[in-house]
């Protein structure tokens, strides 16, 4: 911003006799305005990314499905997601008022995808399913106060583009794989199978997309296949190890294998 002002000053000093120079001064203002807006959105998006990553981290600390703290953690995650929406996405939405949002998509895409990853991860932990992008769009739509007298209140939003949504879901699978590995440590073997099933479902759908013209999807599908393979290997391991003892002893044995299962919280 300081730099911008310095440049503005500089522009004042330049001879105005030339028609071209006069025109280019106008262009400079336009470009600056666009770049400034872009910069502001990028900063907001970066904050969204950081906080979303933290929320994901928080959800990973859920230790056991019947843990008393599970609900507490999920509540906290939900609250923080709400804050992201109200504080950050509303600010982005304000920047986009009267603009073509696609012009600034690159500025907020990273944040949006990471937020979707966090949001769907949260929802999956709550209900074992993920929300439609239309649902998420509702959370990123805000009532706008009537700014000028007489103007009527309207809605503003940060658009949840289906492609961005789906790329976020693609990343979600990575987190679910991690969750699955953690679940083994916690002895939640059923959760592993459930996660594996869900991952297969998502992978199946991604494998069915025509990714022509959507380079990122191709790459994500590939990574997802690897995540899925890891998850399947976890389930496989549970099965072959489980085979050696009666099922009801298995989870217990896994608990035994950790010295103080209850004090482990925070480590996983």
């Amino acid at each position: 911003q300081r730099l911008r002002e310095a440049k503005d000053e500089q522009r004042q000093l330049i001879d105005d006799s030339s028609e071209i120079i006069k025109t280019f001064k106008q262009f400079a203002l336009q470009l600056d305005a666009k770049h400034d807006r872009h910069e502001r959105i990028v900063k907001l998006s970066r904050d969204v990314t950081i906080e979303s990553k933290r929320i994901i981290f928080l959800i990973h600390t859920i230790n056991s499905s019947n843990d008393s703290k599970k609900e507490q953690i999920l509540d906290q995650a939900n609250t923080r997601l709400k804050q992201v929406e109200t504080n950050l996405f509303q600010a982005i939405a304000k920047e986009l008022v009267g603009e073509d949002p696609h012009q600034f998509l690159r500025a907020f895409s990273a944040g949006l995808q990471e937020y979707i990853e966090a949001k769907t991860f949260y929802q999956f932990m709550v209900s074992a399913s993920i929300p439609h992008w239309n649902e998420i769009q509702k959370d990123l739509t805000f009532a706008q106060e009537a700014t000028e007298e007489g103007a009527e209140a309207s809605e503003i939003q940060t658009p949840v583009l289906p492609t961005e949504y789906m790329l976020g879901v693609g990343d979600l699978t990575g987190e679910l794989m991690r969750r699955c590995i953690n679940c083994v440590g916690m002895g939640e073997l059923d959760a592993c199978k459930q996660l594996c099933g869900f991952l297969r479902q998502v992978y199946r759908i991604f494998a069915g997309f025509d990714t022509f013209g959507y380079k990122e999807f191709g790459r994500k599908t590939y990574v997802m296949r690897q995540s899925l393979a890891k998850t399947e290997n976890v389930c496989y391991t549970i099965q072959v190890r489980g085979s050696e003892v009666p099922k009801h002893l298995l989870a217990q044995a896994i608990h035994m294998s950790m010295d103080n299962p209850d004090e482990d919280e925070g480590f996983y």
Partner: protein
Amino acid sequence: METAAEMNKLFSDFSEYIRKEQDLKEKIRDEVKNLEHIAREITMIMQNVHQNPAQDEVLKCCNSSRANFATCKTHYAQLAALVPVNQFYHFNDMWRFATQKLAFLVSLTFFLETGKLASFEEVAESLGLKPEREKGFHLDLEDYLTGLLQMASELARFATNSVTSGNYDRPIEISKFVSELNAGFRLLNLKNDSLRKKFDALKYDVKKIEEIVYDVSIRGLRPAAGNADQAGN
């Protein structure tokens, strides 16, 4: 200036020629898209076997795939109609990827149904392709072999998931099959091309499957003769 005019004429002809070829490519691309679409559909269908490896469910998937292979025949026929007979290899790269994928899916389906290897002729026939170059729009041997290698990789995954579902029979059957496939491939003098690279991956699939059988064996899960019921646990 006469020469300039002549040259202009010459290049207009070239331009026309290039335009025609681009049009043809456009049409081929449309047809290939259809094939790729079907291949994706079948891929989705066959994903289900991992979720539910029981043989009757597997056979349902196979049936569903077979219906789609039939549709491929139409599209390959249209492709064959577009491509002049001596230009097969001029445009081959455009459908090579789709054909490899379909060859993979056919041979996978065939193995799951019969426990056997789909021969080159059977795969060609399933897709409505000629088995020999000389006879027209054909299945390229390398594409067939690439398909087989993809199948081996998918079978490694299937072996894993079969065990997870408590089916300890299947990995042993798969191990035998893939081992033979491996021996077969070792006969081929593959040069350093893309097929060679994929063949190198086969080594890992074989090892992976052998380790599954190992895991099953060392834990005494290996079904003795007649222990079929155990698999149903």
